[in-house]
């Protein structure tokens, strides 16, 4: 399996058989229980989350032989819930990218068309779920890395509020933007996954001490009377016409279901991409400094530490990672800090302020997840700016620390490619988003469509 999609970087075959046997025994002896909601369910994990004894490569040559000595908090939570953790999913190197093409071992393919990208950076996470290679997967979302692949592959992608889910064990790309989330086949599965991975963690000082609601219960109620905003800035120029029309139809569906739709404005949206790439790269440049070949990982020796660093990092990191480290180093340099980093932080507050203001009048926002459907492998590799712009609808919510979800809302005809609908909410409004997404899913059958997987090879 997985030959044509290449969603997995590694699979622990024996481990999963042992876990499955144990789960079978537990089910036979004790039956199912509410505190083990994932008992026996195979969940795959993006290769950026530490799992004891498993490879943790982050899609990078620099960590190609690295095995984690500890479990990320979310992995512990999955294990405690009974999940079978069996495989590590492909991704853009260190989660930097929107197509999974930046993986050092080659891209993952879109299950709907192997010649196309699955989105990124959690391309493996979305593709594996859509290709039925697992029931659900964990991913990380720094600027849309869970939602955009969900949109491009046709599954549910949930990015929880910053602080809702522990980041301990998530290899940091941009610490103030990163959040762990999941890709699932249905909204109800997303609610179950969120219930398992949410909660305060004393190992993560940025996680929020706040009780975890019964997310699945939120799906019971209806969205009737809810007010949903349509931010005009998100219907960008250059948006693929099929995407625009699918979103329009989806909005009509929401109205039909009883929601009130109002047009709203998030006036600072146009600065989000620039702001994001300054903050994200600045943080990345220091987060990735530890990969130096001294304590672990890939090493190319040198005559002195400086040469060792240059040789190791020079050949260990891929192009995009190096580009971002250089950019981030530059914006933090003395003399430039105020003009770039500090300015970007101010813009970030304005963007967050836009959301705060809008959420005073609406319960949630509805937008496209991605302005386009999946593009051809290689199509944007020589144009990083075009690649960056593909996250234009998702990255604002990372800057604001909000939560968001992408759900299937349509397909293009020829070729058949999925289109995603994004719902955004204020911090800790995951229940509202799940409710809206759940109602929409109930009323449509987009999530039921499946690609034909041909494992004979792409």
């Amino acid at each position, binding site marked *: 399996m997985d030959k044509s999609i290449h969603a997995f970087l590694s699979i622990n075959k024996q481990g999963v058989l042992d876990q499955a046997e144990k789960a079978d025994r537990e089910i036979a002896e004790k039956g199912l229980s509410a505190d083990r909601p994932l008992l026996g369910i195979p969940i795959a994990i993006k290769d*950026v*989350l*530490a799992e004891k004894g498993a490879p*943790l490569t*982050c899609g990078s040559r620099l*960590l190609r032989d*690295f095995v*984690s*000595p*500890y479990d*990320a908090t979310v992995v512990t939570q999955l294990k405690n819930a009974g999940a079978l953790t069996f495989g590590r999913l492909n991704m853009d190197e260190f989660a930097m990218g929107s197509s999974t093409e930046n993986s050092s071992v080659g891209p993952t393919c879109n299950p709907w068309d192997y010649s196309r990208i699955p989105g990124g950076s959690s391309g493996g996470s979305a593709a594996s779920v859509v290709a039925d290679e697992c029931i659900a997967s964990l991913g990380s979302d720094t600027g849309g890395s869970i939602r955009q692949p969900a949109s491009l592959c046709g599954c549910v992608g949930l990015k929880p509020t910053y602080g809702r889910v522990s*980041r*301990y*064990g*998530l*290899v*940091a790309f*941009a*610490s*103030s933007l990163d959040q762990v989330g999941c890709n699932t086949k249905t909204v109800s599965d997303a609610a179950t996954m969120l219930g398992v991975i949410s909660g305060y963690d*004393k*190992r*993560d*000082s*940025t996680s929020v001490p706040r009780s975890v609601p019964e997310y699945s219960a939120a799906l019971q109620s209806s969205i009737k009377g809810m007010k949903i905003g349509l931010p005009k800035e998100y219907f960008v120029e250059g948006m693929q016409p099929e995407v625009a029309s699918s979103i329009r139809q989806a909005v009509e569906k929401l109205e039909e279901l009883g929601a009130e739709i109002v047009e709203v404005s998030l006036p600072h949206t146009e600065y989000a991409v620039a702001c994001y790439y300054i903050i994200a790269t*600045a*943080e990345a*440049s*220091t987060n990735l*400094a*530890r*990969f*130096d070949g*001294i*304590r*672990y990982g890939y090493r190319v020796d040198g005559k002195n*530490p*400086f040469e060792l*660093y240059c040789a190791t990092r020079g050949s260990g990191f891929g192009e995009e990672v190096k580009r971002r480290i250089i950019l981030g*180093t530059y914006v*933090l*340099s*003395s003399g430039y*800090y105020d003009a770039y*980093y500090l300015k970007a932080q101010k813009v970030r507050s304005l963007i967050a302020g836009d959301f705060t203001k809008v959420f005073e009048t609406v319960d949630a926002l509805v937008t496209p997840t991605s302005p386009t459907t999946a593009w051809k492998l290689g199509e944007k590799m020589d144009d990083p700016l075009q690649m960056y712009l593909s996250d234009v609808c998702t990255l604002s919510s990372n800057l604001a620390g909000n939560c968001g979800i992408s759900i299937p809302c349509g397909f293009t005809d020829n070729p058949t490619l999925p289109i995603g609908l994004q719902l955004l909410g204020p911090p800790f409004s995951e229940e509202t988003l799940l409710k809206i997404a759940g109602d929409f899913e109930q009323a449509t059958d987009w999530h039921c469509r499946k690609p034909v997987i041909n494992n004979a090879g792409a």
Partner: protein
Amino acid sequence: MEYEIVIGLETHVQLKTRSKMWCGCVNQFGGEPNTHVCPVCLGFPGVLPVANEEALRLTVLTGMLLNCGLPKRAKFDRKNYFYPDASKNYQITQYDLPSTLKGCVEFESENKTCRVGITRAHLEEDVGKSSHFDRVSGVDFNRAGVPLLEIVSEPEITSVQMASDYLNELKTILIYGGISDCDMEKGMVRCDLNLSTRPVGQKELGKKVEIKNMNSFSGARKALTYEMNRQIKVLRNGGALIQETRRWDDAEGMTHSMRSKEMAHDYRYLPEPDLMPFEPETAWYDSIRESVVELPLARKRRYMKDYGLPPKDTETLVSNPSLAGYFEKAAEHSKKPKAVANLILNNLRACMSESNHSVDDLKIQPTHIHELVQLVDSGKINSRIAQEVFNAVYESGKSPQGIVEEKGLAQVSDSSTIDAFCDEVIKANPKSVEDFQAGKQNALNFLKGQVMRLSKGKANPALVGQVLEKRILNP
């Protein structure tokens, strides 16, 4: 032309906490290399720091002891630089919002009371330790992530002696506050310094030269002396100094240029996104204020005033807080605090260093010292016997009174007994008696000694002298 120097000091102190700054690893000197480590302090992928609250507490306590302002909001930042001993290739420190700001240290130097401003005392983490072998190098990360306080002084120190006195005072304050053990041998205190030279009378400071790599206070002293002489010589010879960083070579006893201002590191400071800014409540500060102790200088002044001790003795006591605490307990009810201090500074310290005991190990209690002084004062024993009693109490922990009774060491002042001893000695030493009658004072001392010997040291020496004199001169 005459020149003067201006010195500023950056002192790094390891905090006395049970665990490291960001992880649960033990904060303990030594151990096999890389045994007090975990994914967090080794900078493994995916780990996050969690601030050690005890370290935050000790930082604020230091601020209180150094008369610092305590800003309502403090935060941590990343200081970026690549070095093999830095496990993340950035150090978490406090850049623009430190926990404490603007204080001062008061101390005595060259018979004057001095005050040096403290720019800030901020919390950061220690780094690992590199070792270089024949063909390879290694790094021990046991020390990485140990909480480290950086105490920055204003450039207000005007002599090498003053710098040295400042450092010693700072060290004593930190030991007093329980902030750090300040064990130099274990590298718990390190300092960087900067020194500039200007013609006397000139207002603006000369070019600031930073000096690194002193691993002891005496090293710092030597480096300052060397650098002062070097700078003055350059200026005297008509040369110019540049702003630079120099490295002290202890073996050579010289400083060498490391990098000029133009080559200075760009640390690319960045607010630490993994830690929330720190905004504690008033109650937290209040609870720390309860741990504020009397500073050494105040204690010194109090000892001189309340106990009438000479400056030298107070300094010795004050520089050793546990001994000073012991002294205070012993002197608390004593009418003779000076005698108490003498016993502690002479006898007790000698016994302690001989047996390698610390104050905590002692069997002899402060009340024993008090009692012993009382026994001498009341004439119950003489001061020579007191030495013997002291040694016995030191060994056994029994009360001095008990020892005196047990060994029958009470002083003999009964005149008939002393008369009898004297008569016996006079009879046995006619030559000495003659000598004394002829005016030789030494002869009397000899006779006195004989009486003491006869009494096994217990006779009241003053009485013995009187009786002998009376019997020989007016038989």
